[in-house]
């Protein structure tokens, strides 16, 4: 408990609230970096996932590639990209985008696939165009699973952004690594606690979002999402 006391003391120490290494600044960096990464990954994965989900083509390929991507340890990818492009924020952006794509992609196409075929056929038979079917039927109905995928991806990225500090001066992970280097356990532990709190807070926020995006009338479908939820951050951490 003594260790925790020193960590709490470190978190509350006013000296850690000024300058370029201030805690709020680091948290902001961590969150901003993670959100941008998830946005880039979404821009790639959501249209692709919708295409796969709507046409039903390329599913096998998507499953295999995302499965393969998952087996790759992030630290390896991170250090490799860092050697290619140099120390800095580019390597974490590349490595973590690659990491965030599989869960979002899976969320997008499984969201479409989980929709009752009869619903889609009904939409088609009342005269909706393919684009209208996607926009007015498949996207809203697939939203809970997509949010589930985004939730996994975000948590994974938040977790791995900690590792990113190994190759770049970025985010909360900085405290962990500088604490390790100087054998300052209070800093290390304090930083760890902050990352854990951040991850749990986001987990909570996503749980709320997921509850609210379910279209009325299909909330019974929520039963399918918990499986997604377990998927936070395996490869990530």
């Amino acid at each position, binding site marked *: 408990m003594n260790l925790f006391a020193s960590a709490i003391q470190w978190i509350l120490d006013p000296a850690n609230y000024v300058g370029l290494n201030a805690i709020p600044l680091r948290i902001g960096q961590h969150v901003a970096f993670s959100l941008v990464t998830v946005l880039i990954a979404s821009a790639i994965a959501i249209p692709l996932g919708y295409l796969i989900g709507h046409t039903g083509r390329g599913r096998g390929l998507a499953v295999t590639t995302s499965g393969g991507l998952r087996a790759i*340890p992030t630290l390896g990818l991170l*250090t490799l990209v860092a*050697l290619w492009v140099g120390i800095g924020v580019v390597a974490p952006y590349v490595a973590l985008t690659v990491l965030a794509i599989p869960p979002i992609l899976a969320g997008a196409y499984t969201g479409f696939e989980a929709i009752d075929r009869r619903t889609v056929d009904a939409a088609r038979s009342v005269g909706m165009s393919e684009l209208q079917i996607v926009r007015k039927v498949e996207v809203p109905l697939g939203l809970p699973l997509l949010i589930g995928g985004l939730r*996994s991806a975000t948590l994974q990225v938040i977790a791995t952004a*900690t590792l990113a500090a190994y190759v770049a001066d970025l985010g909360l992970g900085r405290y962990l690594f500088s604490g*390790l280097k100087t054998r300052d356990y209070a800093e290390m532990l304090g930083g760890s606690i902050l*990352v854990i709190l951040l991850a749990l807070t986001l*987990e909570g926020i996503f749980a709320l979002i997921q509850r609210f995006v379910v279209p009325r009338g299909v909330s019974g479908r929520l039963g399918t999402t918990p*499986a997604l939820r377990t998927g936070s951050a395996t490869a990530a951490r």
Partner: protein
Amino acid sequence: MTWVLANLGLIWARTLDHVVLSVPPIVLCFVIAVPLGWVARRYRVSRGVILTGAGLLYAVPSLPLILVLPAVIGTSALSPLNVVIALTLYGIALMVRVVADGLDSVDADVRQSASAMGYSTWSRFWQVELPLSGPVLLAGMRVVAVSTVSLVTVGAVIGVQSLGSLFTDGFQRGIQAEIIAGLVATVALALLFDGALVLAGRLLMPWTRRVTPAKPSVPLEVSAA
């Protein structure tokens, strides 16, 4: 390639370290998750508590968890034990839900028939429910095995040696081949473990051979994320 050939001994040594770190969590999490999953499924209250706890635990990033553990359970800081315990916890967090889902997937009629034939709750669990949820458990364990092998590498940044050490060392010394060798070896090891589990599944559950070659269901594919 020259680096790889000149350092085969090193790669092999790190691979062995990696195996030593990844096997205990995989085995332990199964042994612990089965009774926990059973309890979670059995009572409404325990289901909520255990599954929510598992979900939250799973959301905790690994490196911070590894660093916090010594303060919680009193292991020495930077000991390999912290990595093993952290990975066991993640395995449990994932498997508890899988075990509960797996037991849920057993047909209620089958369960009742077993009771009607005179199985006690205990023997029914071991001889009927557990084997029948086997395919679901196997799919879960495959995800656990692959993710554990991948996560072991994280320990390298705090000095716990594994194939991940090839990443940190390669990065610090600027040897690309070393990092690539580490990546290939880690993925190969993950595939090896995965294959071993599939094989074990075939041997232990011969009845699944024809119907469905053990393969993670769609939700598990997603949860592997």
